[in-house]
């Protein structure tokens, strides 16, 4: 049996999982619920304000970091879940899961660099 290369993707899974555990709930509240539920001003998510954050290099870095870690965490867990429910096409599952994460990563990079 050879030493596995899983550590690479598992590190992303573990890092993403830790970040998601601490940040994702409050992010969901801020970006999706605070305004419609009325305890945050709509200005915070306005085009001008968000653009300002995203155009800031620190803002870019943080947003990239959060999205990158979240998608790779989700991708690896989804791969494991597919195996858990009896889907045996391991290579296909890997391509789909990590492919989606790669797509998300590339889309994020492009979006952030173009702003």
């Amino acid at each position, binding site marked *: *049996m*050879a*030493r*596995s*290369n*899983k*550590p*690479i993707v*598992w*590190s992303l899974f*573990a890092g993403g999982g830790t970040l998601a555990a601490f940040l994702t709930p409050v992010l969901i509240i801020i970006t999706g619920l605070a305004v419609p539920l009325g305890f945050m001003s709509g200005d915070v998510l306005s085009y001008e304000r968000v653009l300002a954050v995203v155009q800031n290099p620190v803002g870019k870095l943080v947003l990239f970091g959060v999205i990158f870690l979240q998608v790779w965490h989700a991708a690896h867990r989804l791969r*494991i879940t597919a*195996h*858990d429910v*009896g889907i045996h096409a391991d290579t296909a599952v890997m391509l789909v899961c990590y492919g989606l994460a790669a797509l998300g990563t590339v889309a994020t990079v492009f979006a952030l660099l173009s702003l």
Partner: protein
Amino acid sequence: MNADTDIKTRIIEIEILRYNPETDIEPAFQTYEVPCHEDWVVLDAVNYIKDEIDRTLSYRWSCHMAVCGSCGMMVNGEPTLSCHSFLRDHPDKLRIEPLANFPIERDLVVVMDDFIDKLKSVKPYIVPREKRSIDDGTHTQMPAELAKFKQYTLCINCTLCYAACPQYMLNEGFVGPAALALAHRYNLDSRDVGASAREDVVASNPGVWECSFVGACSDVCPHDVDPASAIQQAKIAGVLDYFKSFLMPKGEAKQ
């Protein structure tokens, strides 16, 4: 004077999955009505069946005190040591099956070969820094060093954890909770330098990386070994080793 008349008894209906390889195509349940004493464990009821009702029932047991690890079986779907499960905690119907995820040899006896092979593969013994003779005396070890791995020494190889593990169920190639916990036990032992020798098995795909931290193994362990924690710690150690090996390529193998 017959002290038995003071002990309350209860009729328990026990369904056991039987299988005779010489006559049966597949296993089938057989039901027994057993008058059980209130202080009995499941093993006592099974022994009663064999002694008084059906001599043909086959099963493993030995110490009757949860140290030998022989009497593992599924009791109402839960991997259990039958000597460790009190009837007073169960309703009037019991369903007993051989330990899950192992081939059935006969009745409640399962084929343990796969586990034994995996146990051997992780080198479950001290690999010392240098060869010692009897005259060198014993290794010395501080209490703090012992404390690091003591919990993982408590494994009695009962394989309840393998019966509980969905990843072992889905992939019989998985090295499994007990074997990996034992590898971790030796890797943590200050007298041992065999971590790199075990790496081939432990850090492989069917090693720790097959585990998805369901945690059922630790739930069913009768001695709180917590194999799930051993595997997660081994994963983290494996990640550090992996990246270290790129930053500092190994010259010769450590030994």
